[in-house]
């Protein structure tokens, strides 16, 4: 369960990389909140690699382990009516298979 590197998938993203969260709605137990799907952010840190909880939820091994990232988003990107400072952020931990490179990033 811990973040060991044995039987883990290769890490695709590095700190600072711009990413986009995939938009998908499979059934089952998902750790990617609905409100964050399709949003653009940047890798804040790499948390390690963990058995995939979507598979564990069906009592399967969830291997190979999926890298998990903490992704930082701008609040103003998430909520059109956000009234706080433009510098406010929210961080969400997201598994690698939910992330793709943000091709539109500058």
């Amino acid at each position, binding site marked *: 369960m811990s973040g060991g590197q044995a039987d883990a998938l290769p890490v695709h993203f590095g700190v600072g990389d711009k990413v986009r969260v995939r938009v998908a*709605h499979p059934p*089952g*137990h*998902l750790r990617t*909140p*609905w*409100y*964050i799907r399709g949003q653009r952010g940047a890798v804040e840190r790499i948390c390690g690699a963990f058995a995939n*909880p979507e598979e*564990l*939820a*069906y*009592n399967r091994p969830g291997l190979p382990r999926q890298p998990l990232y903490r992704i930082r988003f701008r609040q103003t990107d*998430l*909520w059109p009516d956000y009234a706080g400072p433009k510098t406010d952020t929210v961080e969400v931990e997201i598994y690698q298979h939910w992330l793709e490179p943000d091709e539109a990033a500058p």
Partner: protein
Amino acid sequence: MRGHHDMGGLPAGKVEPTEHQYAPWEKRVDAMLVLLGAPERGLMRTDELRRNIEALAPDVYERMSYYERWMASIAATMLQRGVFTADELGRKLAEVEAREP
């Protein structure tokens, strides 16, 4: 489609935290999950608990208390794992309901 439980970002009122004493049955449900999930048994994972809570119909999810959701999820997982059959569970529930209050 958004799962009913996946409420982050939806309009909501102020969160009012409250404390309550756990009823004996709530403590038993908590203990049951710990015992089922112990490594020597391995009959239930936390992720299964969550999946079966998240699979509850929205109206049932809203009606149930925290540990009632746990109990429903534990029962669903035991059926999925083949620990007992639906018929065995139904007969046991009827037996318990028939007990003197």
